[in-house]
């Protein structure tokens, strides 16, 4: 199906199942422990053994020699495979750093060996016996130093690294009110609950692999490249995933080590990455340094807006696109953005939930708060004054649907924004209380997605697509889509996901999964409806699918009967034509936060949160709300505690476990409220839905930062906003 013109009325608009608050169809499996995650596949007849990785002990250099004799002689050990054994390998398309092979060490904890033994404990103990001699080289680990030699890349994901409209410098200088500040965001870890884990089983040249992957086809292709086997020989499955946040978009070392380990041991091998490996072995969100400049008239109308960002990555890597949203979010005749990439020898920087916008909004939305204060205009109003209904860099491109203003106004009303006082003006006991606001913004991305839908003689609809459910609710919204399209109750739909034998979907990433994968299912259902109509001699245009029947004129036939003993199937891929060229598709929202800051210790604790989201049709308010609430929680960590601490001398992230890298715990999270605007966006898809999962994160941390400022009068521009950055500005309590 080519989606090439805005959607008109279609069966989804009936909203009998889609848009309804349907509980997760896989919820019971998960709640009862029967949903099998990657490491948990266990056939009692299969003699699984265990692989344990060895990571590089240096940040940069070469392996001089390896001694695995003690490891090989350790109890239970079946095989030891080293990076030198497997030699230089071709690198997957989506990997910046190599995952395994060769003598070069590009970052700390890069895999240098896997030890396979009869038990997990034996493998782990033997892994500690592997001796490696390294030749260390000097690396670059400090972004503040490295930014001086940062380069301007040719392009950033298809977009230019720089943009300029009008005369930014002139307008900035000429404006009556201007503001210029620099912000920093730290390296962050996905820290999802389930670590990367894989089980590899070889049958001759064919490899079966259970893993935890957000993108089935990307993993399969890159695994084939890395192992140098034919892609068709690899069967990859990832039906349940314990969180990803972008950390499982790309092939990781667990799958490669399991495959090499299984080959060497001639046994099925399980490999889970130990928690510290998640930080220094896999990917992380890179730190940024961002400069934001805003100039405006006294009325609050922005006349110039500029955003520059620096981030680092390994050679051949990519930058964090933190200035991207500033090209689109606010009006202003004179504009500039620029993004630069420094070389750093830390682990690979890559996508983490809302790459670009998440850290970009952390800076931009504090700057908007600071500018509003300088103008003495309410920050909600300041944002509304500068709303734009067109792409401000290309005014001929309207937004497909943009309702940021309603999000801000409704949120302000519901949250009691008018109660906000001047900075450091409200105190309850030992708590300084403040309110903060930020806009939310994230683009709506469109990627092809395919599905296969079958109807059987019992009237059961089975959907197969390699789409993944990383805790988001994909199973459920796909079942809702198929039920709506085929006119059956959701109980009549079976959804099978995360298997490379199924048609290639959008996968889970970039908040494109829900809209794109359900559209793929929509397209397949259209085909199945046509097949059914054709078989019955109906004109498919006239056929109505409802109550488990297909009806045309006076004739109706139960679907089960229509299927016959052979059943019927439909398969299709949604391809996205150029609608996004003429219309900018984005999602919008507003975050409101109330914080308390302890007047003595500077500890910041969240008291209330509200997100208002305008993101097209909400396919399922329960799963969508869960996404936004989770994102808001992630934003709390991002604002208050999450920071991968870089040892700039030794070149690694020091706090590489969940004790040292502090994500929020239940006690940190208060009442959270989410409001969805009742809207549709016919430019996005026949589902008229857009992404929601990343929107919920974009802006939260800045709203918290702004609330802390309102509470204390202390402005912190370096995330996370820990108490050490506040206490110097708090009143004397001794």
């Amino acid at each position: 199906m080519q989606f090439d013109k805005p959607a008109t009325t279609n069966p989804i608009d009936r909203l009998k199942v889609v848009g309804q608050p349907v509980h997760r169809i896989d919820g019971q499996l998960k709640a009862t422990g029967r949903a099998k995650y990657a490491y948990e596949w266990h056939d009692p007849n299969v003699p699984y053994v265990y692989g344990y990785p060895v990571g590089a002990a240096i940040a940069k250099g070469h392996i001089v020699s390896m001694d695995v004799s003690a490891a090989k002689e350790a109890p239970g050990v079946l095989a030891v495979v080293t990076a030198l054994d497997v030699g230089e390998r071709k690198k997957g398309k989506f990997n910046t750093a190599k995952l395994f092979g060769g003598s070069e060490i590009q970052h700390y904890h890069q895999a240098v060996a896997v030890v396979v033994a009869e038990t997990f404990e034996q493998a782990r103990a033997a892994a500690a016996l592997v001796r490696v001699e390294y030749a260390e080289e000097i690396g670059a680990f400090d972004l503040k130093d490295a930014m001086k030699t940062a380069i301007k890349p040719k392009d950033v994901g298809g977009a230019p690294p720089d943009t300029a409209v009008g005369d930014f410098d002139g307008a900035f200088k000429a404006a009556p009110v201007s503001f210029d500040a620099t912000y920093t965001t730290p390296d962050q870890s996905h820290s999802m609950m389930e670590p990367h884990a894989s089980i590899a089983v070889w049958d001759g040249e064919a490899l079966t692999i259970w893993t935890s992957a957000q993108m089935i086809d990307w993993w399969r292709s890159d695994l084939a490249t890395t192992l140098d086997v034919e892609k068709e020989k690899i069967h990859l499955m990832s039906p349940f995933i314990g969180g990803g946040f972008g950390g499982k978009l790309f092939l990781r070392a667990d799958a490669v080590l399991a495959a090499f380990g299984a080959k060497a041991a001639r046994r099925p091998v399980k490999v889970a990455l130990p928690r510290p490996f998640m930080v220094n072995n896999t990917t992380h969100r890179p730190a940024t340094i961002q400069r934001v400049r805003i100039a405006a008239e006294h009325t609050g109308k922005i006349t110039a807006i500029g955003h520059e960002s620096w981030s680092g990555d390994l050679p051949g890597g990519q930058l964090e696109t933190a200035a991207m949203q500033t090209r689109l979010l606010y009006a202003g005749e004179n504009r500039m953005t620029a993004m630069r990439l420094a070389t750093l020898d830390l682990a690979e920087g890559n996508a983490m939930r809302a790459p670009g916008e998440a850290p970009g909004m952390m800076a931009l939305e504090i700057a908007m708060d600071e500018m509003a204060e300088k103008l003495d205009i309410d920050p909600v109003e300041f944002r509304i004054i500068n709303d734009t209904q067109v792409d401000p860099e290309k005014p001929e491109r309207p937004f497909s649907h943009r309702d940021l203003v309603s999000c801000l106004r409704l949120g302000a009303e519901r949250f009691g924004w008018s109660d906000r006082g001047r900075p450091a003006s409200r105190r309850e006991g030992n708590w300084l209380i403040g309110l903060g606001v930020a806009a939310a913004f994230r683009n709506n991305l469109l990627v092809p997605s395919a599905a296969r839908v079958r109807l059987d003689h019992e009237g059961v609809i089975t959907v197969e697509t390699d789409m993944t459910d990383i805790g988001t609710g994909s199973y459920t919204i796909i079942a809702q889509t198929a039920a709506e399209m085929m006119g059956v109750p959701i109980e009549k739909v079976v959804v099978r996901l995360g298997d490379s034998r199924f048609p290639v979907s959008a996968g889970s990433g970039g908040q494109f999964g829900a809209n794109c994968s359900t559209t793929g299912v929509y397209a397949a259902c259209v085909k199945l409806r046509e097949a059914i109509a054709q078989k019955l001699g109906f004109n498919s245009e006239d056929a109505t699918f409802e109550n488990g029947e297909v009806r045309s004129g006076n004739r109706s036939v139960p679907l089960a009967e229509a299927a016959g003993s052979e059943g019927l199937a439909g398969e299709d891929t949604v391809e996205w034509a150029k609608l996004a060229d003429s219309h900018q598709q984005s999602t919008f929202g507003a975050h409101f936060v109330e914080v308390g800051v302890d007047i003595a210790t500077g500890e910041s604790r969240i008291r209330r949160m509200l997100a208002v989201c305008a993101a097209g049709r909400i396919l399922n308010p329960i799963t969508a709300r869960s996404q936004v609430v989770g994102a808001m929680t992630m934003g709390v960590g991002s604002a208050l505690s999450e920071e991968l601490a870089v040892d700039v001398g030794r070149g690694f992230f020091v706090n590489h476990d969940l004790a040292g890298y502090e994500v929020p715990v239940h006690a940190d999270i208060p009442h959270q409220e989410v409001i969805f605007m009742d809207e549709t966006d016919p430019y996005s898809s026949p589902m008229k839905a857009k992404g929601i999962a990343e929107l919920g994160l974009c802006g939260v941390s800045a709203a918290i930062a702004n609330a802390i400022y309102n509470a204390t009068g202390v402005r912190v521009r370096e995330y996370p906003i820990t108490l050490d950055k506040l206490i110097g500005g708090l009143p004397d309590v001794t």
Partner: protein
Amino acid sequence: MRAFTYERASSVEAAAKAAASNSQARFIAGGTNLLDLMKLEIETPTHLIDINGLGVDKIEGTQEGGVRIGALVRNTDLAAHETIRRDYGLLSRALLAGASGQLRNKATTAGNLLQRTRCPYFYDTNQPCNKRQQGSGCSAIGGFTRQHAVVGTSDACIATHPSDMAVAMRALDAVVETVKADGSRRSVPIEDFHRLPGDTPHIETVLEAGEVVTAVTLPPPVGGKQIYRKVRDRASYAFALVSVGAVIQSDGTGQVAVGGIAHKPWRIATAEAELPRGAKSTADALLADARPTEQNRFKIDLVRRTLGAVLTEARG
């Protein structure tokens, strides 16, 4: 984790004897710290002596009117005990500020005192650490030190003691009762129990080879306002950046120990004498010899401010 042999000790004396005869042996009780350290091969005992069955798990009154807490009393039980809650509220509050419900159910009184630092370099066996491997160097110094000690440090080690309970014990003048390998008993004031790192940060207490902690005793209740204030980056399940355990009397005198700033719970008699004069002079005396790093200098101010909050609360 390396392979190890295991025995269940039949008596305190037998446990002490068995441990003294094998330098590679360790006692195991709750195991909430030791097992993690063994998995990471930070601790590599070849023999474990399980002391869980030794019966030293009661809370009872002492002749002096204080309380004797058996070494194996679980943190959960200790925090919930009526006598502790009534007469030693500081101890109960400190316990509940630490770890999680699950960990407190397993963790023991003696084990809590003996838990090891959470310095991230101590936990990463690729990095030099004088505490983990004597003489290998300290990688924390010059590295990421936000959590580290600011006082009582040495050029060999700037790690902190992570316990909340120990801070309360220190403020309450606890005494550690032990049995040595030769069967003799001794009582060690908690002040002397933990050592400063000096040149030998791998030696953390004055316990001798094989010596078993059997109980911790507290003197008769001293009354006063008993406050434990733990300051941390998130609301639960985090080690203290700074914690203050205090018993403050109505005349402004009292007892105060500070956690999160040293290799042991930090209490200074001369500082305590300053309590009636307020938080600033007390904190200045507590931290007179502080040698903070750039990254943890904030703890100096934070101790002063937290103590200020505690004294305000005590007056209130």
